[in-house]
């Protein structure tokens, strides 16, 4: 067999092992977390790979000061497709919150880039949060805090307070878990 063919076989073998490891670990994790095993674990793996690549690209663009490109990349990510939590567990929802949070943060920090009205930003946050029933995650907390920030900039302080308190509640819960219920 030619060395290149052997290399290809090894490559796909390695990929298969990686897939099995990842999927296996994910099932174990879900079982440990008392969650329902997702209908389509392969969808979660594919989503993770897509996000990893895009976040890396955004890292590079931000590092070079290319905020237009970074926002474009995140907008492209935002356009989906995003799997449902039924298909790929609440992990995918947390990952979506992470991507949206990063996009909104960038847009707030660089309003000169493709300016959007605050109404549009709020729509974006709502879209990111969705109506999924999710586990507490720091990504979700950040998105709520961003929602408060946008409301505050609009002078809608009651709504801002509500959003900040939601973010605080999630973070406090996560801290409590981290401390083993000491709080």
């Amino acid at each position, binding site marked *: 067999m030619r060395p290149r063919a052997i290399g290809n076989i090894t490559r796909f073998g390695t990929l298969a092992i990686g897939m099995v490891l990842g999927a296996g670990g994910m099932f174990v994790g879900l079982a440990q977390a008392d969650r329902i095993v997702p209908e389509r674990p392969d969808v979660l793996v594919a989503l993770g790979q897509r996000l990893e690549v895009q976040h890396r690209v955004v890292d590079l663009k931000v590092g070079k000061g290319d905020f237009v490109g970074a926002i474009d990349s995140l907008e492209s990510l935002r356009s989906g497709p995003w799997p449902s939590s039924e298909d790929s567990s609440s992990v995918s929802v947390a990952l979506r919150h992470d991507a949206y949070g990063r996009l909104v943060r960038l847009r707030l920090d660089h309003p000169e880039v493709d300016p959007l009205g605050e109404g549009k930003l709020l729509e974006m946050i709502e879209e990111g949060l969705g109506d999924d029933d999710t586990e507490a995650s*720091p990504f979700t907390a950040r998105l709520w805090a961003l929602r408060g920030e946008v409301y505050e900039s609009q002078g809608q302080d009651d709504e801002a307070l509500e959003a*900040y308190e939601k973010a605080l509640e999630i973070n406090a819960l996560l801290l409590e878990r981290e401390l083993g219920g000491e709080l």
Partner: protein
Amino acid sequence: MKRGNAVLLSLLCVAACSKRAPRAAAAPEAASAPGGDLGMDDEYAAESAAAQRDYDSDPPTFEELEARLEQLDADLSAQGISGSEETAVSVSPTSEPGGTPADESKDKAGRCERICKLRDAICDVSERICGLAETHEDDSKYSEACTRSESRCEQATTACSTCDG
């Protein structure tokens, strides 16, 4: 393959640890992370070449994959990259009983980092709530929310300080 392994390991850890997966909730994007002088294409090319080398070698063991993931975390942290760094922190594996002292020390450091990042996020939000309270001095709803959030911030600060030792 390096990146793919990292993704799969990240997913593994996300699923296993997401109930205990904190990270800073309000960290801004790194506006000027040091990127070096390499062009983006060069960086991709270097990574691609490394991936090719990985493809052509024997399949890595699970321990090797973990070591690679840790190396990736370290690389990203060294570059001051915020987004993936936060993700990496959030998916750090938790300690298992019976680990080596070195493992336990590393797990403790990871836990402390998560606690302190949560402290940052909690105190950032508290600051914002109390900022609102200042402009609504006559509204007890705001002042009470400020008091509650300050208490949360103090608790988190104590937890972080205690953890850091």
